[in-house]
C-alpha cells in the first residue's frame, strides 16, 4: 500500500497554472526527489501536499485517506511533517525550546497548563536524543536565530523529526549553502532516512545533490510532470537535459 498518492492535482494563481495535473505515488520507506528549474512549481506542489494551499482540482490521499481539504495541523497529526525553502524556526527561543515544542505537541500535550515532573523528564530525554542525533547538543542553549545557516536548517529538520512523522517533506534543504554545509545537511538527511525507515520527499533544484540520495526522481517543468524514474533513467533523459539546459541558458 502506498503512503502518499497525489492524483492529478492542479493549482492556479490567476491565469498562471503553477501545478498542472501532476500525479505522484510514494511507497513507505521510499526516498523521493522532486527536481526542476526555479519556478517549475515544486514548492507549490509541496504546499498542496502539506495543506498550505488547497488544489484547484485533484485529490491527495495519505495512507488511503482523502486529505485534500484537511487542515495543516491535522495533517501533522496524521503523520506529515515539512520544512520550508526559507528556514522557518523560532529565532528567539533556544535550540532546546525549538525542539521541545514539537516534542510536546507530538506527545499530545499542547493544551496542558502544567506538566508533571515525570512528563518533563520524558520530554527532556526525547529532546536530548534529537539534539544528539543531529550533533546540536553543544548548541542546545543558544538562540536558534544566532546559529549558522546549516545549524538552523538542522534544527528545522529535527523539529520535523520530533513530530514522529511517517512522511517528511523537505523543500530545498541545502538552498543557499556552501559545500561543507550542504554535505553536512545531506548526511543528516541520509542518516535519518536510514535509521528510521522514514519516507522522504525532497525538493531540489540542483540535480546533482539528489543523485546519491533518491530512490526515484520526479521532474517538474512549468508546472507539469516532465519525467519520472530512477536517478540513472532521469540522467539519461533527453527532455530533462533540455529543460535544465534551457533554463540554465535563460538565467545565465
Amino acid at each position, binding site marked *: 500500500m502506498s503512503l502518499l498518492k497525489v492524483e492529478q492535482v492542479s493549482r492556479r494563481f490567476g491565469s498562471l497554472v503553477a501545478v498542472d495535473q501532476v500525479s505522484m505515488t510514494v511507497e513507505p520507506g521510499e526516498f523521493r526527489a522532486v527536481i526542476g528549474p526555479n519556478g517549475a512549481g515544486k514548492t507549490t506542489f509541496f504546499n498542496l501536499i502539506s495543506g498550505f494551499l488547497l488544489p484547484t482540482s485533484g485529490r491527495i490521499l495519505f495512507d488511503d485517506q482523502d486529505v485534500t481539504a484537511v487542515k495543516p*495541523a491535522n495533517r501533522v497529526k496524521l503523520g506529515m511533517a515539512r520544512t*520550508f525553502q526559507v528556514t522557518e*524556526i523560532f529565532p528567539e527561543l533556544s535550540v532546546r525550546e525549538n525542539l521541545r515544542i514539537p516534542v510536546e505537541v507530538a506527545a499530545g500535550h*499542547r493544551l496542558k497548563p502544567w506538566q508533571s515532573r515525570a512528563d518533563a523528564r520524558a520530554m527532556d530525554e526525547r529532546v536530548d536524543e534529537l539534539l544528539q542525533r543531529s550533533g546540536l547538543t553543544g548548541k542546545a542553549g543558544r538562540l536558534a536565530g544566532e546559529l549558522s545557516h546549516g545549524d538552523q536548517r538542522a534544527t528545522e529538520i529535527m523539529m520535523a523529526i520530533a513530530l514522529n512523522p511517517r512522511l517528511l517533506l523537505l523543500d530545498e534543504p541545502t538552498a543557499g549553502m556552501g559545500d561543507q554545509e550542504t554535505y553536512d545537511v545531506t548526511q543528516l538527511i541520509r542518516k535519518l532516512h536510514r535509521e528510521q525507515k522514514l519516507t522522504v520527499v525532497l525538493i531540489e533544484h540542483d540535480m546533482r545533490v539528489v543523485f546519491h540520495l533518491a530512490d526515484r526522481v520526479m521532474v517538474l517543468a512549468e508546472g507539469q510532470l516532465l519525467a519520472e524514474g530512477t536517478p540513472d533513467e532521469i540522467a539519461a533523459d533527453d527532455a530533462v537535459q533540455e529543460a535544465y539546459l534551457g533554463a540554465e541558458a535563460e538565467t545565465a
Partner: protein
Amino acid sequence: MNSTLNRQIANALIWALLLTMPYWIGFVGGYTSLASRVVVLALAAMSLNFLLGFTGVLSFGHAAYFGIGAYGVGMTIKYLAPSTPLGILVGMGVAAAAAAIIGTLIVRLRSVYFAMVTIAFGQVFYFIAYRWNAVTGGDDGLSGWRTLPLDFGIGKLDIAGQPLTFYYFVLALFAVAVGIMALLLRSPFGRTLLAIRENERRARFLGIPVEQHIWMSWLISCVFVSLAGTLYALLNNFADPHDLRWDQSGDFVIMAVLGGMRSFWGPLIGAAIFVVLQDYISSQTENWMSFIGLFFVLIVLFFPRGVVGLLRRKAAS
C-alpha cells in the same frame, strides 16, 4: 552568569518591593492609594502582555474588558447584591463571556487588522456605558455604590476603610493572577504561545491549531484584565466610562511597551513609571500626556526592548 539564579533574585526583589510598597512609597512622594493604583494597572498591563508579549498579538481593545469588570462589580453591588466578591466574579464572568464571543470573531485577523477590530468592538462597549444613562450613569459614570467589607462568616475584613488593607487585598489577587499567568507561560501550552509569537507558520506546521491557541490566550488575557478593572472600580468606588475607551487601551499598550514586552515583569515597571509620571506631571501641567508620549517615543526609538531590556543590557555589560 547563571540566568536562572538572576531571575530568582529579580523575582525576590520585586516581591519584596511590592510587599513593602506602602511603607516606602511615602519617601518617594507617593501615598498608599497610589501604590494600589500601580498594582492594579500593572495587573492590567501584564494581562495585556500575556497576549502581546508572549503570543505576539496586539490588542487595542483591552479597556473594554477592563471596563466591563469595573461596571460589573459596581452594578452588582448597586443593583444586585451587597457583596464585593460576588461583584468581582460577575465582572469577570461577563467580561469572559464577551471576550469568548468576540474572540471567535477575530482570531483569524492579524496585526493591524486585529488591533483595529479590537478597537471597534471596544468602542461599542464604551458607547453602551456612555449612552445608557439610566443604568450606567452615562457620562457621569457609575456612582452611588461603594466597596463593601469582605464577610468571612467568622468575621469581616473592611477592605474599604483602610487604604493599607485595600492595598494588601489588591496585592493578594494580583499575586494569584500573576502566579497563574507565570505558570501557564512555563507550561507546554505556554510554549505553544511563544511558538506562535516567534513564527506562526512554523507553529501551524508543527501541528498547533494556531487560531484555537490565540483564542485561549486572548480569553485568559481578557479575564485577568477584567479582574484589574474590578479592582480599579473598587479602589475608586466608581466606574468611569473612560475606563472602557480606546485611549485607556492605548495606555495599557504604552505601559507594556515602555517597561518591555518581552519580559514578564516589564509591564509592571512600565505601569509604575506611567502612574508616577501621571501623578507628578499632571499636578504641574495639563499636558502630562505629551510628556508620557515623548518619553514613550524615546524609549521605543532607543530601547525597543523597553526599560527592562535596558536594565538587562546594563547588567550583561
